């Protein structure tokens, strides 16, 4: 197992290096922060702009290759991912952003999974009955409705509750109220901020897991081995929960392992709408602000997360499926 991980790890490090390097070249040749600087009022002279850029390590006069070597040396020798055109250090900014994203999505991912898989099993056991139709129709609806609209609807709902009660129970945007004293009050404030985005992301997210789990389980409820289990003397429901469920979970486990990282890296809409400035919104901002280093850093983060997901998926598969051998 260790050897396998080491082997996979090396492969992925190589791939991350390739994607990140390619991303850097693309960014450095298409993003021109100097042009944006030029629009400032009072209008700086080109020399001033070039000078300020040079100080931040973003010298527009150097060739892409020279800047790449400089940037790579910085990372390799000092783990320094460079600076933004506004002077911020990527390393510092990045840590904050990742932490915000993680906090925003952690609870909802767990809820999404648990609810999605549980409802998938529940609806598969009641195929074409009323409960199944309601749940599955909802899941398809959640599939179709664009995420931002769903988020807005949840926000509106929360505001409605606030108005009906006549008191602000939920915060629909923001991470926390500034200046709270640590203690009970701060905890309540945190929950009030957390509730709306978590509920919104969960409501939108579980649909795909429910549909997948229901489908895979239905593929298996009439499998020969379930019939064998029933012939041994298990009731239909026992046979399904003991035999079909685990088999049907194999493909679901794999897809879960792949989607978790994707959410961490790319919850752009949620971060914007709920005003949690995480990695997703940062990566979009980086492009609009012509920020070469930030754009590359988010790309590198995405690659790392994806590699982790792939390894996690392998892990998950070996865990639930004895037929898969790790060598």
């Amino acid at each position: 197992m260790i050897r396998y991980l080491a082997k996979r790890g090396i492969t992925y490090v190589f791939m991350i290096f390739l994607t990140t390097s390619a991303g850097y070249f693309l960014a450095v040749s298409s993003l021109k922060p100097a042009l944006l600087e030029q629009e400032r009022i009072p209008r700086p002279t080109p020399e001033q702009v070039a000078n300020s850029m040079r100080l931040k390590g973003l010298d527009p006069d150097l060739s892409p290759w020279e800047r790449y070597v400089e940037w790579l040396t910085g990372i390799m020798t000092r783990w320094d991912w460079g600076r933004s055109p506004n002077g911020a250090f990527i390393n510092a900014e990045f840590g904050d952003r990742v932490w915000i994203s993680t906090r925003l999505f952690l609870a909802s991912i767990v809820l999404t999974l648990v609810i999605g898989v549980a409802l998938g099993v529940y609806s598969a056991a009641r195929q074409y009955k009323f409960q199944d139709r309601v749940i599955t129709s909802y899941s398809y609806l959640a599939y179709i409705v664009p995420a931002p609209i769903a988020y807005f609807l949840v926000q509106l709902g929360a505001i409605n509750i606030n108005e009906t009660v006549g008191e602000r129970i939920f915060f629909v945007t923001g991470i926390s109220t500034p200046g709270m004293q640590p203690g009970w009050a701060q905890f309540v404030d945190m929950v009030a901020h957390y509730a709306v985005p978590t509920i919104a992301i969960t409501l939108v997210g579980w649909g795909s897991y429910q549909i997948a789990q229901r489908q895979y389980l239905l593929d298996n409820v009439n499998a020969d081995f379930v019939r064998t289990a029933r012939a041994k003397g298990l009731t239909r429901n026992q046979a399904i929960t003991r035999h079909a469920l685990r088999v049907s979970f194999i493909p679901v486990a794999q897809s879960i392992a792949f989607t978790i990282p994707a959410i961490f890296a790319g919850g752009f809409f949620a971060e914007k709408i709920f005003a949690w400035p995480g990695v997703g919104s940062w990566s979009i901002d980086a492009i609009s602000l012509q920020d070469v280093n930030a754009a590359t850093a988010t790309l590198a983060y995405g690659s790392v997360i994806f590699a982790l997901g792939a390894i996690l998926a392998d892990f998950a598969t070996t865990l639930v499926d004895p037929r898969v051998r790790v060598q």
Partner: protein
Amino acid sequence: MSTFLEPADPAPTAAERLHIAGLHSPSDAVLSVRDLNVSFNSENGAVHAVRGVNFDLMPGKTLGIVGESGSGKSVTSLAIMGLLPATAEISGSVRLKGRELLGLSDKAMCAYRGNDIAMVFQDPLSSLTPVYTVGTQITEALTIHNPGMSKAAKETRAVELLAMVGIPSPRNRLRAFPHEFSGGMRQRVMIAIAIANNPRVLIADEPTTALDVTIQAQVLEVLHTAQEETGAAVVMITHDLGVVAGIADDIMVMYAGKPVETGSVDDIYYDPRMPYTMGLLGAVPRVDVAEKSSLVPIDGIPPNLLHTPTGCSFAPRCPLVTDACLDGEPALSPVPGTGYHQAACIKSASLGGDVDVHEIFSAPPVPVSRFDLIPRGDRSTVLELKDVRKHFPLTKGALLKRRIGTVKAVDGLSFDIREGECFSIVGESGSGKTTTLLEIMEFHKDQDGEVIIGGISNKQAADAKTKSAMRREMQMVFQDPTGALDPRFTVYEVLAEPLQNAGMDKRAIKKRIMELMNLVGLQPDHVNRFPNQFSGGQRQRVGIARALAVNPKLVVLDEPVSALDVSVQAGVINLLDKLRAELGLSYLMVAHDLSVVRHISNRVAVMYLGKIVEIGEVDRVFDNPRHPYTRALLSAIPVPDPQFERTRERIILQGDLPSPLDAPKGCNFATRCPVFAALPAAKQEHCLTLEPPLEAVQPSAAVEILEAGPVPTPDQQFACFFPDGELDEHMLVVHETAEPHAP
């Protein structure tokens, strides 16, 4: 002895009178089924899958239920087990030791399932849960019905069960997963699960259909042991009349959801009274008979079960049909002058004795080819293989591949096929039959070995032109007729494609297609139909027509009838026979059914692990097999003849075909050889170090004296050092205990 009853009838029948007199009461029966009816609702209306099944199963006895696909035999078994979907409508009565099972809830049924009544299913590959160990799955069956059993006791019992079904080192194998077992081993595990709680009734639904013939013999042997150990009554469901001949006490033949003939095994095989049964028995080729006669084809297809038949359901296919047959469906009634033999035919009384089934079904005469009179040596060669090899490297590692071994799928094959001859290759799965065909079809100059088709060698096949010339010489018919035809092509388009490739003009194509349709026995006005509008047998005929379109000299048949039902299979085999004679075709056939091979082939090669172990004229090889493997293979084939089966000595090979990776250095077969096992150590050494060459059988001295002079060497070669060695007695099985059945 068990009995069959007909559904409630105003006038009591002989059997019922016996019941009334208390001579044999149904309470003796461990399982008794009365008037079982099952129907499913489909979009087109109710499908009556089972209509009025009755039988009594006595303890320790075996009932064989025989029928083709769609005859309702599996549905009957699932209805008894209570495993049909909730949408099925079931009526009648199923009593297990006097207790009614029909109408019980799923939960209530669970007390019986796996305890008093257990089942073995057809496909061992999918019948075990892939994510649990074999041990877990066996102990589960024990836990359900014996909640108080200790963990250690359960493990001991599981080991005992695995040992009983013949799995080596059972204690270690408990922790193995199903995918680590071969098909035959998995079926053994299934049997172990089924007999875990000593059931009174064991239902086996086509338990060996998915297995190789040598493995089938092993599994049937295990079932026999299981029955002896548990004393269970067995219901054996099969389409293969050979499989049940040796093991069943009674037979029930089903057709269109209804039992059409019931009786003791001897009644059914030696004195069938229902034309359908007679046809079925005549449709099966026999592996032990050399005499060449055409098979009995049963025209038409089984009826659609959506409509309740107004007359005899077999009437549309029956050659003896009269108007009286269409007047109401005949019930099962006793055959006069017999015991409990019953048939559902109004003519059953007149069908006894010396009625020739070939005459009734007007089996075609044996076709004679113009090549039959020419000695083999004088006919030209259509296909020749010289030392063809196909080795697959087995590698390890993702980026840097290391070669860790070689799979010798085909290892030095040489044979030739002459004009007008059918040459067959037989062997278990994994023996390299299909690879051989693929190598011939591949026809590439970089191949290892030489393939010569119609005088064109693969070594000169540099351009597409030579290849397409070769393709006109040789065409192929595939195993699965459904998969081999494009569902969106009409038959016309299917047949026109090869002709267009050959550059024929439109009018010629049309004419040729009409010819082809007639040739394969299809109606020419069906050319605009799609494949799904034909039955399986008809689709295979389309496949044959397509192969014949370009007038090839050689047709490669890859398991041409294995996907077809017995009655349909006979028609296709007769067609192939006829075409060979009329068109002077040569066939290269690959088949696992040795009876079919014997019926249509002139010469045969037996393959084992990529090598030919015996080759020669088909009757010589089948009647006087020299190689121990050929002998084992032939002895494993069930014959539809109960007397013969009961007294027959079988060689049961141990274990599975070894992985080609572990192929021994000397003789490939040594690991499973019954002769090798009984040899003294010095001779064993010989087998293990030297590879036996293919050598011709020498005519015995006695024959030479008789003929006064040297006789030509017979057409039979084999690769074994000690063909006359004694067989290891552990691998020989005879069931002499089975007493003949008095009616």
